[in-house]
């Protein structure tokens, strides 16, 4: 479904080249849970951006449904992210003036309201649907983000350190919810190996290079 061929991503910092991803080749299959594990600054988030089409590789190719992202116009790439992917980021980004329920529907519209309510209920937020983000705890915000990512039943959910700002217990619950509620593949980046106990595959990355997979 998603495939990279010797994809590299190089940043330039004051004239110095920094290889965030270095010739990475991998494939994400339908419905599998892939963990990407590595220390801070190892390039795991950059790899997630490449896989989701948020960034273009500076060398190599990234395919989605066997067509390179680079060959697709920006609107089509946005449409893929909107319709086929779901995102959970490290920070629970929510729109401050929208309620939890409205935040869940902010990208895909109110036609999914019934499912949005169901998701929030299954994530334990049945009493907090009409609260603003400022009235929610960090864990609750992240659960709202999960509901938003799962609302349209995406083919792939990309989760970038979704537990980083949470305590271990809440983080474990969040991962559990992601795994339980997904309908497609899950690609999760983390530096905490204990969050990947349910992963089908774990890819380790160090200094931009894939080290091993298990």
């Amino acid at each position, binding site marked *: 479904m998603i495939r990279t061929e010797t994809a590299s991503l190089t940043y330039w910092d004051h004239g110095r080249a920094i290889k965030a991803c270095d010739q990475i080749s991998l494939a994400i299959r339908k419905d599998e849970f892939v963990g990407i594990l590595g220390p801070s600054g190892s390039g795991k*988030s950059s790899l997630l*951006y490449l896989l989701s089409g*948020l*960034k273009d590789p500076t060398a190599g190719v990234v395919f989605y449904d066997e067509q390179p992202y680079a060959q697709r116009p*920006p*609107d089509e790439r*946005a*449409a*893929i*992210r*909107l*319709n086929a*992917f*779901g*995102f959970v*980021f490290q*920070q629970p*980004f929510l*729109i*401050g003036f929208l309620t939890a329920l409205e935040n869940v529907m*902010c*990208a895909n519209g109110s036609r999914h309201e019934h499912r949005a309510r169901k998701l929030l209920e299954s994530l334990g937020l049945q009493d907090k649907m009409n609260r603003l983000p400022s009235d929610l705890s960090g864990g609750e915000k992240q659960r709202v983000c999960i509901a*938003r*990512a799962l609302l349209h039943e995406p083919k792939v959910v990309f989760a*970038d350190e979704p537990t980083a700002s949470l305590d271990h217990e809440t983080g474990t619950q969040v991962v559990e919810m992601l795994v339980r509620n997904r309908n497609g593949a899950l690609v999760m980046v983390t530096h905490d190996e204990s969050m990947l106990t349910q992963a089908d595959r774990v890819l380790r990355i160090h200094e931009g290079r894939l080290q091993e997979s298990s």
Partner: protein
Amino acid sequence: MIAIIMLAVVLIAGIVAIIDSIPLSVQKVYGYSRFLTGVTPRGDMSYFPTILRHFEKSPVPIERRIICRTSIFNVNTIVGPWPFVLHGINPNDFDYLSNKLRLGRLDGRQPISGRGEAVITKPIAKNLRLHLGSIMLSPHDEKNYSLTPVVVVGIYDSDQWFAYTSYEYLVQTHFPPVDVAIYFAKDQQTQRRLDAWADKTLAGTKANVYTYPKVERDTAESLAVLFRILDLVVGLLVVVITIMMCMLVNIYLSQRIVEFGLLQAIGISRKRLVTRTVAEAAWMILTGWIVGSAVTAAVLTLIRNVLMNPKGYYIDPLDPLAYVYTIPVPAAVLITSIAIVLIKFAKFDPIAVIERRIV
């Protein structure tokens, strides 16, 4: 943002409506002249018969001619005293004149020939705070002087501004002894033709022609400089407000940068975000303009009812010119807002938001 546009609209429309009340007052105060064409000799009183002969050959049908005398008194306006004509009319012309000028019902009576008596209309009574029995002109009044006191004996219930005494009284007490010929046509269209013909025929002669189009023309010419200054002031206001709004729009967009970054990252296209943001800005600007216009109309109505009307002053709360002058504000703000949105989004990287590099 809405409040600033609203205040700008109130400020500009208020200033324009007040300035535009001057020509409006001219049209109202001297509005009676649209029913007549007046002619006097100038420099040579013996030219009067020649004027009358000219009009006998008029190709435009004349309904009636009235020979009268005139004197001047002052009415009050927001820009100070304005001269107004006290006509000296022969008693046998009273009824025709009141019908022609649509003066309506007369409260009181007509002036007796040769006596210091005058008939006025309601707006003049209101403006000068006169009522039946009031002294309108007096030998002790510097602004409204007459050799003997002139008492108000009749007030017409009409919106028209008009005042007259008897011809005989002005002959006896007022200088210079110049007659005025007033010509009436059967309707307004014919009156304008008569105005044009008189203006053309008597141009360059020893005759002064008074017509309503001339009043309008003279007013427009005398206020032209004022309106140029107004253009400049409004132009400067638009620039200042637009700069202020640019800064506000910039702050507004910066405050929502996380929202835009998030939405773009999760798949809302840049085009859709730009369209949505521009639509939001347009909605706010339009709301500000509509609310500002409504507030202006309400404030001007209050000013008209409380300050202007009781003194017989004029202001139009729905003056189209006032609202036309405000259009550059929302237009300039909208154009610059669109430009700012386009510039912001052209360089916008949602990853920078997700990675918290720019928030």
